[in-house]
């Protein structure tokens, strides 16, 4: 199976060639704007009226796909090519039952009768291990979870036994523990059928675990192709190296390693430089790079689009800049540090609507428990990382600290003084001390105000400076986040995602808050930009010595940035550990699963992920006892289901674990499975 493509009008994809053998999984990795989605659409011949393949051709077996007419194309889509899309929600028809949508394929493609099609559907639902296939088949898409929707789509794609399967970021919208299960499922199912798989993603870890060969795309071009092990241990293109350096790995911490962001940003489509497309951002660009490099064969099955690949291979030049050493004063949990923020026994619930009947009888409102008896302490000048999957209540905690969400029970203390939970009852000084940077940069800044207008408000309102002084401070602030004064006159619409996040950070630190909350500040950014933002967060904290509550679903990022880490699961804290201890056993079983579920780039660590069964519990109906007992792989019986655990404290590390299993038992079993290189299974 061969595939080749040439120029496009706007050159969304330029001069890309690769081939996928039957039974092979080819990974295509790239940041947003690299052209990978366009490439997928081209492979599917689904470019629509706005796009067109200018030159080159795509072959499926011996069949040129460019030559196909509409009729033949439909045949091919139905029988030979299948896609698992990124967003399962929008790929299923919301008004047709799930089973019907799958059965339709069997009726039309395989000409099965209705009852036979139904049977086939249920069989496939079993194959993708949907719990209770019959119930799922009669559900509408919105009635099943995202993970289950994705299983349905996998069943649809595989049921036609395609010769080419295209996976377009199939797990990007899913939680890590679900992602691990889905990816292994896909891996298992495709190994049964002899098909070619094109796997498109931005997640390097996933690629390294599941693909046989990897192509790296940058700004419409394929810049490197190799086996994942070779690619990640010894990249032959500066861009690949840059990508690897900008992601924090497990165990890397801010005290030891400074991340290496790739400078600049990806050029807009059709506006790339002449010569090597990566030249403006490349640390080792030289004269010859003004000529466009071709894809040089680089030994073995490797290809690199870099003039200097030989020098890189021989380590004659180092793409890795030596990380500047970081002086940083030691900070332990040492006593003497005052506490910036304390949460004591905080519970938060969202009230549900009462029925009219209940209202008239004066029954109290029922609530959905979002956060249950959370105790957290953030010592001044330190970073607390709060990690959890979606629905774990981490954002709710942040909102309650900010006064945007009232709490049902508990106390929030700022500098040991209890503060009201309602924003309207807090004074300006309290507001000044607490600031937050929201998750979505697109809505973090008012699109109708210039950056300067937004940034000067905290100075005027919270610090009481006159306008002229505030404007001068804005310039300082912009420089502190490595932007120029010219940005003060720009509107958010004119900024890139990374620049917007810098401005949002600037707004957050403007009032010199004692506590800055960062709610998933980098999860919507591209990998190469993420590193720069993380470095900036570190730098700013060193300068103004504030405390940070860093919220993320990404354990590696949290592990890199935080001094202390708290793991939360459906509103209950599971584990609190110092950064240096989090990745060392004993772990809470949930933390253990979480750590193992994250695909690692490092080719050496190839442990199997622990599979968590089932779905996150429904917040209306949180399990009794330990909330994790329904999915816990180390479930020890009755006690887990009935009694809430107590906090156990590891005397050596002060690590706190919310579990019934004695720490010694956790330690011995987990140390064993780590040394085996296998998970629980």
């Amino acid at each position, binding site marked *: 199976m061969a595939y080749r493509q040439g120029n496009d009008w706007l050159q969304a994809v330029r001069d890309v060639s690769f081939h996928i053998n039957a039974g092979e999984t080819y990974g295509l990795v790239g940041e947003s704007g690299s052209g990978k989605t366009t490439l997928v659409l081209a492979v599917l011949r689904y470019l629509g009226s706005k796009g067109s393949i200018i030159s080159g051709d795509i072959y499926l077996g011996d069949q040129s796909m460019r030559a196909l007419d509409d009729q033949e194309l439909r045949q091919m889509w139905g029988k030979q090519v299948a896609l698992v899309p990124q967003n399962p929600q929008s790929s299923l028809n919301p008004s047709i039952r799930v089973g019907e949508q799958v059965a339709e394929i069997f009726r039309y493609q395989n000409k099965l009768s209705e009852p036979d099609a139904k049977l086939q559907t249920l069989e496939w639902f079993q194959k993708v291990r949907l719990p209770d296939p019959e119930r799922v088949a009669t559900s509408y898409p919105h009635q099943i979870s995202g993970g289950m929707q994705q299983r349905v789509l996998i069943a649809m794609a595989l049921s036609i036994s395609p010769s080419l399967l295209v996976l377009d970021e199939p797990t990007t919208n899913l939680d890590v523990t679900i992602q691990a299960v889905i990816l292994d499922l896909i891996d298992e199912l495709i190994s049964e059928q002899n098909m070619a798989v094109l796997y498109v993603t931005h997640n390097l870890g996933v690629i390294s675990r599941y693909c046989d060969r990897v192509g790296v795309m940058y700004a419409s071009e394929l810049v490197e192709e190799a086996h994942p092990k070779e690619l990640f241990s010894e990249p032959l293109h500066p861009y690949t190296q840059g990508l690897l350096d900008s992601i924090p790995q497990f165990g890397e911490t801010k005290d030891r390693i400074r991340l290496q962001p790739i400078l600049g940003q990806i050029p807009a489509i059709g506006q790339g430089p002449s010569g090597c497309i990566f030249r403006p951002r490349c640390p080792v660009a030289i004269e010859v790079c003004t000529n466009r490099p071709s894809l040089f064969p680089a030994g073995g099955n490797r290809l690199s689009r870099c003039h200097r690949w030989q020098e890189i291979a021989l380590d004659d030049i180092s793409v890795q800049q030596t990380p500047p050493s970081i002086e940083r004063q030691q900070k332990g949990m040492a006593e003497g540090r005052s506490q910036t923020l304390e949460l004591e026994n905080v519970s938060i619930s969202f009230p549900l609507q009462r029925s009219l009947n209940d209202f008239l009888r004066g029954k109290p409102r029922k609530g959905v428990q979002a956060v249950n008896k959370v105790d957290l302490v953030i010592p001044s000048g330190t970073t607390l990382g709060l990690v959890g999957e979606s629905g774990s209540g981490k954002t709710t905690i942040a909102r309650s600290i*900010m*006064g*945007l969400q009232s709490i049902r029970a508990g106390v929030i203390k700022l500098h040991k003084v209890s503060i009201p939970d309602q*924003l309207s009852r807090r004074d*300006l000084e309290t*507001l*000044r001390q*607490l*600031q*937050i940077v*929201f*998750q*979505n940069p697109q*809505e*973090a*800044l*008012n*699109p*109708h*105000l*210039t950056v300067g207008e*937004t940034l000067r*408000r*905290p100075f005027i*309102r*919270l610090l009481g400076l006159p306008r002229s002084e505030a404007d001068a401070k804005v310039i300082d602030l912009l420089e502190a986040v490595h932007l120029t004064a*010219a940005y003060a*006159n720009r*509107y958010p*619409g*004119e900024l890139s995602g990374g620049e917007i996040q810098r401005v949002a950070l600037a*707004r957050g630190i403007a*009032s010199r808050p004692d506590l800055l909350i960062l709610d998933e500040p980098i999860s919507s950014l591209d990998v190469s930009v993420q590193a720069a933002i993380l470095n900036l967060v570190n730098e700013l904290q060193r300068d103004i010595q504030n405390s940070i509550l860093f919220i993320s679903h990404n354990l590696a990022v949290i592990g890199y940035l935080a001094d202390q880490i708290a793991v939360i699961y459906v509103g209950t804290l599971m584990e609190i550990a110092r950064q240096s201890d989090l990745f060392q056993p004993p772990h809470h079983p949930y933390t253990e699963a979480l750590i193992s579920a994250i695909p690692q780039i490092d080719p050496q660590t190839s442990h199997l992920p622990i599979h968590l069964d089932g779905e996150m519990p429904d917040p209306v109906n949180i399990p009794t006892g330990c909330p994790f007992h329904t999915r816990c792989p180390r479930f020890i019986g009755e006690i887990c289901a009935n009694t809430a655990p107590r906090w156990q404290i590891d005397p050596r590390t002060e690590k706190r674990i919310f579990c019934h299993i004695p720490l010694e038992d956790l330690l011995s079993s987990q140390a064993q499975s780590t040394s085996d290189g296998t998970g629980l299974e």
Partner: protein
Amino acid sequence: MNSISKSSNNGLGVVPSWWRRLLQFFQQLFSRPVSGFGTAITLVFLIVALISPLIAPYGANEIIVADARQPPSNEHWFGTDNLGRDVYSRVLLGSREVLVLAGFGTLFAVLFGTLFGLMTGYQGGWFDEITMRIFDSLLAIPALLLALLLLGTIANSKYSVLLVIVVIYTPIVARVVRSVVLAVKPQGFIETARLGGESRTRILLREILPSVIPTLSVESALRFSYAIFLVASLGFLGVGVQPPSPNWGLMVKEARAYVTLIPWALFFPAAAISLVVIGVNLMADGVKRLMSPDQID
């Protein structure tokens, strides 16, 4: 689709003044033939309304008995009516009455509607519930019926017509504004402003209002065209304005009886109504395209 966001990207790095933005906005309106046509008609009528006393050859109620019921001629471009009044002059002078009433009515309705919309949308709760239910009940009654009802109970004058327009259109504008506020309110930058200790007034006027403006300008243009129609309709029904006012609706009503004899006395004011309503509507359509390009097909 060149939306207005381009205006700020003028390469000079300077924030364009409101005046420059307005000019640019009109330029874009004229760049499409249809909306350009509508805008031109609207502007012509507005200018005529402004200078009509200067250019009208006769007074609105100047009766030239000898020239009664004359067809259009050099002397009287649109002919004369049953009483011998110059129809051309009356149409010109009538534009002032119609456009001023409709214009100010729309202006006040937009002002009050924006105020209520911002407050109900941002505040929520009981205040929102009560205000919106009152508005709902006003909206449930057909506009013309409500107008007749109101004019029947209050003084039958020009100013009552103005009041009627305000009462009828305020709830509609408020609803539209409120829906935009509800969409903007949960966004991060509003919460950031609240956490920055900003006052409610400032959040409403500086943070939320700019997002409302695009929708509001489309709505204003639409309301204006409906208001013109309403003023003319009320004139035709003989409420609110009294003869011998040169209200176009009233002129149509008066000429109706003699339509076979002097059709021009009916045709020209009727044409004026149609033309200005069509013009404003086409302009509103153009504004809509400029303000929210993604909402059109």
